[in-house]
């Protein structure tokens, strides 16, 4: 109970950050929105590009699913990895690390916020983008899709923790490094194309990315109405792998925090 109250500190902090930096928030939302639109228009324009008759409707939905899921997963990833970066920018890191809060509690608060925020943000983008195209989700398995998305969040929370370590190690460049990490995930996870398109060696790497399974499963649900029962094994694997990544992430975080305390990297000035 008390732990939940402490975890709420991070939720409230993040809500306040959004309120105070709303201009930034709007810009970022527009960026994601335009990005999603642009990608989806590639599908819409494919007949004109190739001069052949294609199932444009299918292509649009295919790309839209990719871009929306990616938008959701990357919000989770960034929100978690920024849990340290923000404190670095503002200089409050020493005060937060001095408080009697376990990193697990810190993470629970940050994760709850990230998931709610990610869902709301993705919904906004979905509603706006959907108004540009006429989507056909008649045969889609929506409950299955939601289940898959939540299961996929677990591993992205884990990846976020690993990325959160970077600003701890590299006060200046850490936050930028997480961008590079996200870009690599985007490339290898089959967000806009089937992973089979990639060279063989990248396909091997891609099988290690949780997003690969989430996106593949989502397409199964939304485009082919794949049944929830047939998804259960993927859901199970995603949750198990995600939990393992979180454990490893927390372990790495603990080690790096100790290292930072040995070498004096928490300090900013004074």
């Amino acid at each position, binding site marked *: 109970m*008390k732990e939940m*109250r*402490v975890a*709420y*500190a991070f939720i*409230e*902090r993040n809500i*306040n*950050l959004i309120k*105070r*930096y709303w201009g930034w928030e709007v810009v970022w939302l527009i960026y994601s929105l335009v990005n999603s639109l642009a990608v989806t228009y590639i599908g819409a324009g494919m007949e004109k590009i190739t001069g052949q008759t294609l199932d444009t409707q299918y292509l649009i939905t295919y790309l839209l699913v990719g871009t929306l899921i990616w938008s959701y997963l990357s919000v989770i990833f960034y929100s978690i990895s920024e849990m340290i970066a923000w404190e670095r920018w*503002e*200089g*409050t*890191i*020493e*005060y*937060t*690390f*001095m*408080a*009697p*809060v*376990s990193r697990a509690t810190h993470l629970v608060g940050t994760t709850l916020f990230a998931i709610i925020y990610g869902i709301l943000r993705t919904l906004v983008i979905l509603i706006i983008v959907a108004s540009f195209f006429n989507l056909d989700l008649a045969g889609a398995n929506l409950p299955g899709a939601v289940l898959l998305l939540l299961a996929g969040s677990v591993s992205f929370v884990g990846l976020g923790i690993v990325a959160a370590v970077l600003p701890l190690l590299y006060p200046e460049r850490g936050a930028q490094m997480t961008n590079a990490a996200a870009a690599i995930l985007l490339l290898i996870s089959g967000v806009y194309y089937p992973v089979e398109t990639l060279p063989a060696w990248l396909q091997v790497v891609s099988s290690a990315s949780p997003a690969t399974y989430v996106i593949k499963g989502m397409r199964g649900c939304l485009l082919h109405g794949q049944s929830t029962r047939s998804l259960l094994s993927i859901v199970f694997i995603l949750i198990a792998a995600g939990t393992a990544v979180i454990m490893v992430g927390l372990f790495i975080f603990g080690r790096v925090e*100790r290292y930072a*305390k*040995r*070498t*004096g990297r*928490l*300090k*900013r*000035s*004074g």
Partner: protein
Amino acid sequence: MSTPALEIKQVSKVFIKKERAKRFLNKKKEKVVALSGISMSVSRREIFGVLGPNGSGKSTLIRLLSTLLLPDSGTIHIFGHDVEKEEFAVKRLINRVSVDAAFFKKFSPLENLAYAARLYGMPIRQAREKMRKIMLRLGLKEETFTSPMENMSRGMQQKVAVARGFLTSPTLLLLDEPTTGLDPYSKRDVQAFVREIREAHRATILLTTHDMEEADRLCDRIAIIDEGKIIALDTPQGLKRSVSRRNGQDATLEDVFIELTGKKMEEKEQDK
């Protein structure tokens, strides 16, 4: 005898500074000895001062006590809890105010303090009341409570920082130059408040300052450190007495400071 509030034994801390040398691949590693073999003990409800020139290791010592740094060697116990092994027990007992008033600058003082209160698991309604009381007590105006911190002057921000330290009623309060940048009235406000919480909450206080008068007025005992070593430790009267005996005239704490830390400076000058 009850366990002391703070027990430091043979604590040392060295930082490695990476000097990027002109030539590639030839990174020189320079060692900075911040603290070397510090031992001291502070009893409960004592106001203990740590004085020393810039860079003598005062802030490093305070960071070691607040679990933000780990010592290279030696042990630190706070109310009997080992700082390294019983990190959380220690964290619950302490709070720290430092020179740099670090806050979320777009948040108001109340929002910043609420964040702190939640981190320490305080019931929020109770905490809100306490924040107001402390900030008013420190002479901050009600209308500043809800506007962004970035609009406040440095001194006002420093007062919010002091309020944050007091908010959680720590049993050991670590004050790293809490009054630097405050006007004389505000300084007195903070000093009176420090005494008050010692009486009211039976708190122990460790204080660093460059204001000799403040140290003289507040502290029960004072350690003077220089280049990471304790070079004197006594009551303010004791320190003054020892110096005036040598010089044959009444000494202020500033005289003591200059006498004890200045010799080194002269020696260093001669070395050059």
